[in-house]
């Protein structure tokens, strides 16, 4: 009887949640939709902050010579730009999608651990405040690159290491809690009839991503802890004088770092695999092969880390091992690209904005994949290493890959989130401006890199001047284009054409069986098992 009473009072509380107003609603919320919204807004703000830093970088590189800043400040810009985009923009955006969509997609009333969910979001602003605050300190912000290689970040640190480490610890704790929440939700909260192989692909990809997160974020926490004690407490994990080894830093860092890049792309695969069938009006080609391909990529990501370190003087056997393992990743990735194309093949395609972003994703991500394959080749990597070719590669997979998929997903689910259709003209303007400018921005970087322009350098040889000018122009245009998105979203929240429960006629999934905008509480009683269809 007692437990019943407690449960009852809980329910009571839950139903009063949405009556809380103002800032309290957001601070105390345990509702997965609210927290998803917070994550998405936070990541968009971080995108703009990180983008502003990138504008600084491109302004300096517009012309050869030093115009606007000291090299040390330039290093701070590249470092914080990388950290913010990776940990502040891309990862929280996907966690936002996960929070909003996973409970609705599997027919659960909420995430399994709603209070932890609140906490995992609300520590994030603190992490990034600490990181950004270091810009205004005497030491300056971290200037050792987002990869914070020792001894740059220990012996040669400008004094920002402690703040950096503390910020990364908080980000890591947040990601780990988010990941635990997703796994527990998916394992225990699926509606009756929602078997694993009936789960939407976004749920699958985030399920696997969450496992990657709990496997490698603790390793990141460990490596930054070593960094901290090396810098301030006299240990010598990475200091040769005390018997340590700086190359070991790179091994531990990239053991985290390589799975990390898949953490940032696997959910993108899930989003695109949801959208393409909806607008091709065909079932996804090869659902189960998509699941297995995702799992294989996740597994392989643990045994390829040293391809970031070909030039550290590895033995030939090591170089060959990591080269072949890396190239092996092209196989499951190829399966995915093939499946997306096969889904579109002879489909009744229409080109709404989510679909445009998804198609652009498939093409441009594949370009990024190909340059990745080139970088995987040990002999040529010695030429490409630490040049703009690498910069071009990872921006193609992260910007036109991850970020484009986030936009695709945002447009796809905006009607569900807001209850309104977004403005078609403005959103198309956003797409085309982004598409054109992003290629002006990143495509010439391939050639700059091949010609030998090093990354993370504030100045360059004269022969690179013309290309850099175009890259910078593309950069400014791309940065401004993202403001269009802000306009579209605000307009969409405020009004616009009413969206029906299922505004896309080809869309599948439980989230379209509830009204638009999605009610504050959904699936308090499990959905009708007949609504759960295989993919």
């Amino acid at each position, binding site marked *: 009887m007692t437990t019943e009473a407690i449960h009852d009072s809980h329910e009571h509380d839950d139903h009063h949640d949405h009556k809380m107003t103002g800032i309290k609603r957001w601070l105390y919320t345990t509702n997965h939709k609210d927290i998803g919204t917070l994550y998405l807004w936070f990541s968009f703000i971080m995108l703009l902050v990180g983008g502003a830093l990138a504008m600084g970088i491109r302004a300096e590189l517009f012309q050869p010579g030093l115009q606007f800043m000291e090299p040390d400040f330039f290093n701070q810009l590249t470092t914080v730009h990388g950290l913010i985009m990776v940990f502040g923009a891309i990862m929280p955006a996907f966690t936002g999608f996960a929070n909003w969509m996973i409970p609705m997609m599997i027919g659960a009333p909420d995430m399994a651990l709603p209070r932890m969910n609140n906490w995992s979001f609300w520590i994030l602003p603190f992490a990034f405040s600490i990181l950004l605050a270091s810009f205004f300190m005497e030491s300056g912000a971290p200037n050792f690159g987002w990869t914070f290689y020792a001894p740059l970040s220990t012996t040669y640190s400008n004094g920002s290491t402690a703040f950096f480490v503390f910020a990364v610890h908080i980000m890591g704790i947040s990601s780990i809690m988010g990941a*635990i929440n997703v796994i527990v939700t998916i*394992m225990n909260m699926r509606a009756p009839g929602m078997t694993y192989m009936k789960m939407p692909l976004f749920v699958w990809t985030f399920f696997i991503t969450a496992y990657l997160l*709990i496997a490698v974020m603790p390793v990141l926490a*460990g490596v930054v802890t070593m960094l901290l004690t090396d810098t301030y407490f006299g240990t010598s994990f990475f200091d040769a*004088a005390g018997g340590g080894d700086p190359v070991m830093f790179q*091994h531990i860092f990239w053991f985290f770092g390589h799975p990390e890049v898949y953490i940032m792309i696997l959910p993108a695969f899930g989003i695109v695999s949801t959208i393409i069938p909806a607008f091709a009006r065909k079932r996804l080609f090869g659902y189960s092969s998509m699941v297995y391909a995702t799992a294989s990529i996740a597994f392989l990501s643990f045994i390829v880390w040293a391809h970031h370190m070909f030039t550290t003087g*590895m033995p030939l056997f090591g170089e060959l091992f990591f080269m072949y393992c890396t190239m092996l990743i092209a196989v499951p990735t190829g399966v995915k690209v093939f499946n997306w194309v096969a889904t579109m093949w002879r489909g009744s395609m229409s080109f709404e904005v989510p679909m445009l972003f998804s198609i652009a994703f498939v093409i441009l991500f594949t370009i990024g994949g190909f340059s990745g394959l080139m970088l995987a080749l040990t002999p040529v990597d010695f030429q490409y290493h630490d040049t703009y070719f690498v910069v071009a590669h990872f921006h193609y997979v992260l910007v036109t890959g991850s970020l484009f998929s986030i936009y695709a997903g945002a447009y796809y689910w905006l009607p569900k989130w807001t209850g309104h259709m977004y403005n078609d003209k403005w959103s198309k303007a956003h797409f085309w401006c982004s598409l054109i400018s992003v290629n002006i921005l990143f495509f010439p970087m391939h050639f700059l890199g091949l010609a030998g322009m090093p990354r993370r350098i504030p100045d360059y040889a004269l022969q690179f001047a013309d290309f850099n000018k175009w890259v910078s122009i593309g950069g400014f245009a791309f940065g401004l284009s993202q403001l269009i998105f802000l306009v579209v979203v605000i307009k969409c929240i405020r009004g616009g054409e009413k969206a029906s429960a299922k505004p896309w006629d080809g869309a599948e999934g439980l989230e379209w069986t509830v009204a638009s905008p999605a009610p504050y509480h959904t699936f308090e009683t499990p959905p009708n098992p007949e609504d759960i269809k295989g993919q």
Partner: protein
Amino acid sequence: MSTEQNQERSEKDNKTTKTVKKLVLVVFAMFGFGFAMVPLYDVFCDITGLNGKTATTAAQVNEDGIDESRTITVQFISRTAKGIPWQFEPMINEIKVHPGEMKLVKFYAKNESARDIIGQAVPSVSPGKAAIYFQKIECFCFNSQPLKAQEDIEMALQFYVDAELPEEVSTITLSYTLYDITSAVES
């Protein structure tokens, strides 16, 4: 709410708690694994000579004879780490040896500052795969080297190259980096 629903609910809560416990365990295990990589890495490097790490203790004198059919060039380079005001350099830049042949070379070090400093040289061999074949019988790098202000010293290195050295290696570069470990020794 019926008791049945109640039971279902507490069952679900139990399952949730179980899964959370398992996952938290994984998190701690992986945090530990990050640190376990430190000794693992050392063991791995010791076995394979990966990363140019040489042995930190003296090798036995060679008794397997000298292979005069091969000549190996051994180059010496030296470097001082940030913050140690010493002059430190090999007295000979390179030397030709037959595998198995013992050689003695000297390094010169001078404390150019006005304070007493304890230095520690850390060796590294390139190419990495030659590291385990580079045998040091006596080396100043086995111990730290204290030097008083303005004092200088000639430090000895006695070594031979193991006859098992892979065929394709004809040049070995031995690099020493000198670190100031005064504060670490004193504390």
